[in-house]
């Protein structure tokens, strides 16, 4: 797979420090203690896939969906490393030999902003005095080396970001998708409109997905759009026992599988990131769901990065012989080592993990 990430080095990003991962596989299972950097790792792939300010601000706010958060600006500043001003530096090498180097650096300064400028950013509020505010002055950019053409594409953008202009961050220019990446957070299954759309539009894939949905309900026959009382389309499930019912009425397992299935299709020939993979799936269904995900990722040529806290999920993955025998899956343990002041990692093949689990109840997650 040309677009598969083979190596990645994260100098700084959120809590990740000097993390180096080599020989990444088709399926990569990230495990580790709470706060070891698993989610940060997924986010850093999402971040570099589209190296512009718009995406950086989108990424810095992904964790705030369920929390009372500060401004976009506050989230942005807190995404940067605290220990120095070196900023975010991430580089990765693809199977193709292409190489991407991402950087986002700068520093926060105090600056005066006048009421007219402020009102331009936030039109609904009238300001009447100058204000001293924090502003991030820096640069975001990347170097992309194409091994085939031997070309190096360089891009750099000046940033002046403060609490006022960050509010309108979607207006920042920058469409520079370098990698096709889909990201599913632990709560994303609750809103799966886009996934649903992708599946519905691919009739052949839809049949496969419906077959997999029978893991959760053997009477599911179809997924389709219906119109609600106001004529707007709503996602529905056709059930041979109870008829057509809105997807919102279904259990989380069905929603989760649809979310993942849509993510796989939208990451076609790219990368899928799933945080807390096992969320909303009952332990007895792990094997069927994992088998579906494995086959679907293979079919769509998708490199998969998943995080999990569940040892049962690890054990079920280890039971898929084809994955283990073909060495298609790695288990990567992340650990924040405060003594070494870095994020250390351990990458093991599934065969090693299976053998060690059998021999001494190996705790791969720590």
């Amino acid at each position, binding site marked *: 797979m040309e677009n598969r990430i083979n190596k990645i080095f994260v100098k700084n990003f959120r809590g990740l420090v000097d993390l180096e991962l080599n020989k990444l596989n088709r399926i990569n299972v990230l495990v580790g203690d709470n706060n070891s950097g698993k989610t940060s790792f997924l986010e850093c792939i999402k971040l570099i896939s589209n190296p512009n300010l718009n995406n950086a601000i989108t990424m810095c706010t992904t964790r705030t969906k369920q929390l009372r958060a500060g401004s976009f600006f506050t989230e942005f500043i807190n995404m940067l490393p605290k220990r120095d001003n070196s900023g975010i530096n991430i580089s990765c090498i693809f199977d193709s030999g292409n190489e991407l180097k991402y950087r986002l650096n700068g520093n926060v300064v105090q600056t005066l902003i006048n009421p007219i400028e402020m009102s331009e950013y936030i039109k609904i509020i009238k300001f009447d005095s100058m204000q001293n505010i924090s502003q991030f002055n820096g640069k975001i950019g990347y170097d992309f080396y194409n091994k085939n053409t031997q070309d190096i594409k360089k891009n750099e953008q000046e940033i002046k970001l403060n609490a006022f202009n960050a509010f309108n961050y979607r207006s920042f220019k920058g469409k520079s998708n370098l990698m096709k990446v889909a990201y599913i957070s632990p709560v994303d299954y609750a809103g799966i409109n886009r996934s649903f759309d992708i599946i519905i539009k691919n009739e052949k894939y839809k049949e496969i997905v419906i077959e997999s949905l029978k893991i959760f309900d053997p009477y599911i026959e179809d997924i389709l759009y219906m119109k609600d009382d106001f004529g707007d389309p709503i996602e529905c499930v056709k059930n041979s026992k109870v008829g057509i019912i809105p997807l919102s009425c279904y259990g989380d397992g069905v929603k989760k599988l649809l979310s993942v299935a849509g993510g796989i299709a939208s990451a076609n020939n790219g990368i899928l990131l799933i945080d807390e993979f096992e969320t909303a799936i009952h332990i007895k269904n792990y094997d069927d769901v994992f088998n579906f995900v494995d086959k679907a990722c293979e079919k769509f040529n998708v490199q998969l990065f998943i995080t999990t806290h569940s040892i049962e999920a690890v054990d079920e993955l280890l039971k898929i012989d084809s994955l283990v025998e073909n060495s298609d899956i790695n288990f990567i343990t992340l650990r924040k080592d405060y003594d070494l002041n870095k994020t*250390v990692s351990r990458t093991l093949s599934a065969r*090693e993990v299976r053998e060690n689990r059998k021999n*001494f109840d190996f705790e791969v997650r720590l």
Partner: protein
Amino acid sequence: MNSLVLCEGKTDAILLSYVLINQYGYKPFKDENGDKKNLTPIFNSNLNEYAYWYKNNNSFVLICSVDGCDNISEFFSKYIIPIQKNDYKNENIFEKIVIIRDKDDKTNEEIEEVILSKTNISFLSNKWEKVCIETKFDNINSFFLTYLLIIPIEHSGALEDVVLTAFSEDDNKKIIVEKSCKFIDDIKQDASTYLVSRRLISKAKLGVTLAIMSPEKVFHFIDEMLKNIDWTKYNTIMTTFNVLSELA
């Protein structure tokens, strides 16, 4: 701190645990919180297994028997090296590893060489050795201490000889030991079908001695009989396993 004591048989393990408990204040440790779970090797079901944790303050000792000296190196390579290689934090590995095995008819050097060739880890007799191993965490090196205790310390033989020597400290028992040994030496030609090795001859000598000392328990397993002896009174046992005092 976690330490591992790897020995040949269940009898060794029983004696070692006895010394740990009664001489050095350890208590059997049941891993209710799962803290040590990932450091406990699971035995091949064909082996006559024994694996128990003991705890004294912050010192944890795992005693494992592997059903014969021939299994020690294989067991170490298969189960212990992966534990040591998969982490570098002291709480997740064994900081001290002691191998206790019978001398039989070999020299200490011969035994050291066999272990080194089969495990690639250096164990020196009666001496702590600092070993470095490259872990799977970013190739970070981890360190642990190894120790090889070959018994009996003074002469050739096996654990049974150590026990018999211990009994001989008591004048009343010394005569029983001597006569039991002589009896076996006298009969071993006629009983060559059963007493096929030096090792089995030693076991027979101990068996006869114990049968005389505890005739009512003669049909019990020897291990059960050994458990009921106050070994702290026997200098030989305490001196031989003195290395256990260094595990804390």
